[in-house]
């Protein structure tokens, strides 16, 4: 059979046109980076970003533990990972407890109990970043730590036995460790480490007046997707910070909304907005 122009035309129509149509139907043709968290299919482990030399003993131990947890995973766990699972590293401060439950199968009650939240906390509206408002920073062995999104990542990693290596969280609230022990979620190695790396979260809880003041301050400096880049700069963000967060220079036309700028550059809205919020906080 000789291949003519018409055959090439048909091949292009079938393979390119049909391929795009089928992949769209299968959800494999997103032209923007997902705003929600990514799905990890390769089963790879997220590596610690800081160098081992800069880590303290506790940090190194925790890293080793996470690596050990990955290596010791059962075949079934590894198959789950190799199939399609949500990457713990993709948990964002903007996630609600309901989203954590949906994406990682960690019930809201587990986080509410482990992080001393009020029993009537609404899992749909409570965002992980709210933890920073509820609790003061705590100090252990001369180092300052925060209860924040990364703390939840470590908790979720231990609860679900999904790999995650943190270079920030080396202690967990006592209640969180007790909860994990009660639910039989820790390996013997993890148990021996975390039992000795706890702190009493309740003593760092802020009083209601402070929480309210911080919430008001936060909302005053808050921005939305419709905030323009000029607006961000007038709110106090310098150009260097903007470039650092987005990876791109401040455009000449500063009247572009941050949402459009993010999408125009193929960035994840949640990734960038969280860093901007972090800056203003």
């Amino acid at each position, binding site marked *: *059979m*000789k*291949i*003519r*122009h*018409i*055959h*090439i*035309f048909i*091949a*292009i129509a079938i*393979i*390119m046109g049909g*391929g*795009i149509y089928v*992949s769209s139907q299968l959800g*494999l*043709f*997103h*032209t*923007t*980076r*997902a705003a929600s968290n*990514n*799905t*990890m*299919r*390769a*089963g*790879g482990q*997220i590596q610690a970003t800081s160098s081992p030399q800069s880590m303290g003993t506790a940090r190194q131990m925790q890293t080793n533990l996470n690596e050990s947890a990955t290596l010791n995973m059962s075949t079934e766990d590894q198959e789950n990972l190799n199939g399609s699972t949500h*990457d713990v590293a993709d948990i964002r401060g903007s996630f609600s407890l309901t989203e954590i439950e949906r994406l990682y199968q960690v019930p809201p009650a587990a986080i509410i109990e482990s992080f001393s939240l009020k029993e009537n906390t609404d899992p749909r509206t409570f965002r992980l970043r709210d933890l920073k408002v509820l609790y003061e920073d705590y100090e252990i062995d001369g180092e300052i730590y925060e209860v924040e999104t990364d703390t939840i990542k470590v908790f979720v990693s231990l609860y679900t036995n999904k790999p995650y290596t943190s270079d920030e969280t080396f202690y967990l609230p006592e209640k969180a460790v007790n909860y994990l022990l009660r639910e039989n979620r820790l390996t013997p190695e993890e148990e021996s480490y975390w039992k000795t790396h706890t702190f009493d979260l309740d003593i760092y809880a802020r009083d209601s007046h402070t929480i309210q003041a911080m919430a008001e301050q936060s909302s005053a400096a808050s921005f939305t997707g419709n905030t323009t880049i000029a607006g961000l700069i007038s709110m106090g963000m310098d150009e260097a910070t903007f470039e650092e967060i987005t*990876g*791109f*220079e401040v*455009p*000449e036309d500063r009247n*572009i*909304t941050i949402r*459009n*700028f993010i*999408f*125009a*550059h*193929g*960035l994840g809205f949640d990734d960038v907005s969280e860093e901007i919020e972090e800056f203003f906080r």
Partner: protein
Amino acid sequence: MPKKSTKSYWLRTFIQVAFLLLVTLISINHFRFTQGLPPILVGSASLHAICPFGGVVTTYNYITQGIFIRQISQSSFTLMWLVLLLALFVGPVFCGWICPIGTVQEYFGKLGKKIFGKRYNNLVPPKADYWLRYLRYIVLIVIVILTAMELRLIFQDFCPFFTLFSFWSAEVALSGLILLGAIFIATLFVERPWCKYLCPLGALLGVFNFFRIIPLKRNEQTCIDCKLCDKVCPMNIKISDKRIIRNHQCISCLLCTDEIACPVKDALNFSFLKTKK
């Protein structure tokens, strides 16, 4: 150019122009999107989202870490597999029929043909031309390695596709504009200089010529040795002295075949079957 089948010649032209217009419209829509304006007719995806080479440079990070590098989306990765599948059957059809940079070079090159006549596309010394054609493989390897290490689109600052279709944008780098200008100038002397010497995607797709399911075959029994096929090939491939042509530079444009240039029926075409002896 059309000697015999005018319809066939215009079919490829139609597809080339259609894809060129489509990409132009998408890039305009993307710009409109950043201005808060609605898209016209088609979507407003970023140029990175519709370029299969984005899929090539993110493959390593996808396999090892399960991530796409910054600015690369799923569509780019999917397009890469579709283009590779197409190449497996019919070779680098993407280069000869779809790629807008190839199209722009091809039609801008007609100006060079008018200037230099028969000397056009034969101005580079053969020895230099031979070795320069391997440069694109070095470009491919360097870009893939650096992108995997840097986790960002290092090629963007040089990419003629990105530069041409967003030259009005502040994102375009001076290096990209200089390279694009150099390509346009070179196109006056050489046909498809970017494709021949530098294109990293063309390099990857070109490899498929060695094992494509449907190769170009010349029937030595019926060939009258007129060498028209050699003359019309935009990639300067010497076709007339081989029975099966598996050259890494072929772009499957079909200009040489008996449907367009070859004057003898069944003497030169792409086919599954072995040529009768």
